[in-house]
């Protein structure tokens, strides 16, 4: 029978996150998906950057790596290239993946390396106290946007899609079951896959933008979500402030590590011995 605790380092709990933080709901969806796929714990490597969401790796009983701000995807790329048999799952925040780590994010999508990225989008820098992030909507408030955000925001799923990811889906913590399904598909996909999950930060984002409690924020996720099929029939104005959920792309294309394996297979010498001569 499924028990979350099989996958948790319970001695490190309770979780560091605030009351009502959505990140724990994402974590649960991830563990259910992993369980459903029957993956061996030893074969999973979970890599995170820096931020509230990135603290997740400390709580799960896999090979876990908490890296530097924005760089999780680069460490994960090294792991996947060196040991392709591992399932490498990246846990990252909106700031981590698309501000400081934006370049790595698009390049991993471009090379289509077989990583699964779970991108926790809370529209804010949670860990550092609520500064504006690349996904903070125009006009919303942050500790460094006291007069309202005067910049446009990223569509971070769209970014991955345009950069060449094999699988991109968006969901919310309210839709925890749908989220679980997308995580499962993302892990199964051989190629770069992203699940963008809209999660609430009641402490810094919710409070400053008068969005109420964690429950209120989750209800707003429910209200504002539009399935991608319906969104395609709607105008840009109609989609203003909405969350388009669903699978945005799911395709097969050459994957970076497998392509490299072909080169190894073709050129590697049977002895594998090294010569100190050119």
């Amino acid at each position, binding site marked *: 029978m499924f028990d979350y605790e099989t996958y948790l380092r319970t001695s490190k709990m309770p979780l560091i996150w605030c009351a009502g933080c959505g990140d724990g709901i994402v974590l649960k969806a991830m563990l259910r998906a992993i369980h459903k796929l029957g993956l061996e714990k030893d074969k999973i490597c979970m890599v995170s950057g820096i931020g509230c969401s990135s603290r997740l*790796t400390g709580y799960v009983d896999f090979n*876990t790596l908490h890296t530097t701000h924005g760089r999780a995807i680069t460490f994960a790329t090294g792991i996947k290239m060196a040991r392709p048999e591992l399932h490498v799952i990246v846990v990252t925040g909106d700031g981590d993946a698309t501000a400081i780590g934006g370049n790595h994010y698009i390049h991993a999508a471009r090379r289509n390396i077989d990583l699964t990225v779970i991108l926790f989008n809370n529209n804010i820098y949670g860990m550092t106290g609520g500064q504006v992030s690349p996904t903070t909507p125009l006009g919303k408030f942050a500790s460094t946007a006291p007069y309202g955000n005067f910049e446009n925001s990223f569509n971070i799923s769209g970014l991955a899609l345009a950069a060449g990811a094999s699988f991109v889906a968006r969901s919310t913590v309210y839709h925890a079951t749908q989220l679980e399904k997308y995580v499962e598909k993302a892990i199964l996909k051989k190629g770069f896959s992203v699940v963008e999950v809209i999660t609430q930060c009641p402490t810094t984002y919710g409070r400053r933008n008068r969005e109420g409690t964690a429950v209120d924020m989750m209800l707003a996720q429910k209200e504002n979500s539009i399935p991608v099929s319906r969104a395609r029939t709607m105008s840009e104005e109609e989609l203003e402030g909405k969350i388009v959920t669903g699978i945005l792309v799911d395709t097969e294309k050459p994957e970076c590590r497998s392509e*490299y394996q072909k080169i190894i297979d073709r050129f590697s010498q049977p002895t594998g011995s090294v010569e100190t*001569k050119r």
Partner: protein
Amino acid sequence: MAEKGKSNRVQVLSGNEACALGALAAGMRFYAGYPITPSSEVAEVLSLELPKVGGVFIQMEDEIASIGAIIGASLAGSKSMTATSGPGFSLMQENIGYASMAEVPIVIVNVMRGGPSTGLPTMPAQADIMQARWGTHGDHPVIALAPYSVREAFTLTVRAFNLAESFRTPVVLLMDEILGHVNEKVVLPLPQELEIVDRVRPQVSPQDYLPYAFTKNGVPPMVSFGEGYRYHVTGLAHDESGFPTNQPEKIERLLLRLNGKLEKNRENIVDFQVDDFDDAQVGVISYGSSARAARHAVRLAREAGIKAGLFRLKTIWPFADQEIEAHTKHLKAWIVPEMNLGQIAHEVEWVVGRSIPVHRINRIDGNPINPLEIMAKIKEIA
């Protein structure tokens, strides 16, 4: 083929090529890098050679990504390396600190060029000495080596890996543009002639494994991801189990062990070579390609009947302070020629205090130091 007797094994190689071959011989099987002059040949050779031995080469989107990837690959069990020059080395600094803190063995080759900033892309310098020591923030351990010949570019690259693996620490190989690009006739050691060191693996079961254990020599055993040990790695201050801690005594203990492990083992790390030193009255301390000029100058001095000697640093960090002090006894003065404004001279002054003068010969215009300039200084002092 390699094993057909010595005469067959003479080849002409550049320092960058020799470095790449040394890495392969050391067992390096993962390279990630971003092109930059004057280091790019290292990447080019490895892109060709690595797949032949089942290894992996990847060109990343920048140097931050490159060092991230090699840390990841090292944790996954591959000996890993990147090569760069000043601007790229600057970008790598945060993750060099990560590798120090998380104790991940990696090798970073910095083929030095003139700086600051974009500086002199195609001209040599030795001005990243202090950056190699203190480039990343916080108190941290680091090892830096400086080869001076093409052959040594090979052997010190092998040693860089051995040290990284022995001490679970990043090792910087400080080459420079001259050495990177100079072509020399060399006979490289055969693979079977090399001592290759691999990280020490734990003798305990996964339940008892402490990835940051306090061991006798200060270096915890290391196991790769995916081998059943499932541990946590973080750049946050952590306890022996690898999980973050805020307890002052645990934090202090960790940092003292980290910084102490190289000090504890410095005898096995610090390396240098002396030429003509027995009766020397004027000592020249040099390293890297400047040491080529220094050696030449010392020979000219000897031919002229002047008792000069060369002390050549093979390890830059940890600094050979005790060894330099021991060689200071009978000297009138030290001369320190280097392609910067005195980064090593400053360390030497610190070691010898006011006991004898330390003369600097500095060159920062992108040109190598002329042996005659060193010779002139030797004459002046002798």
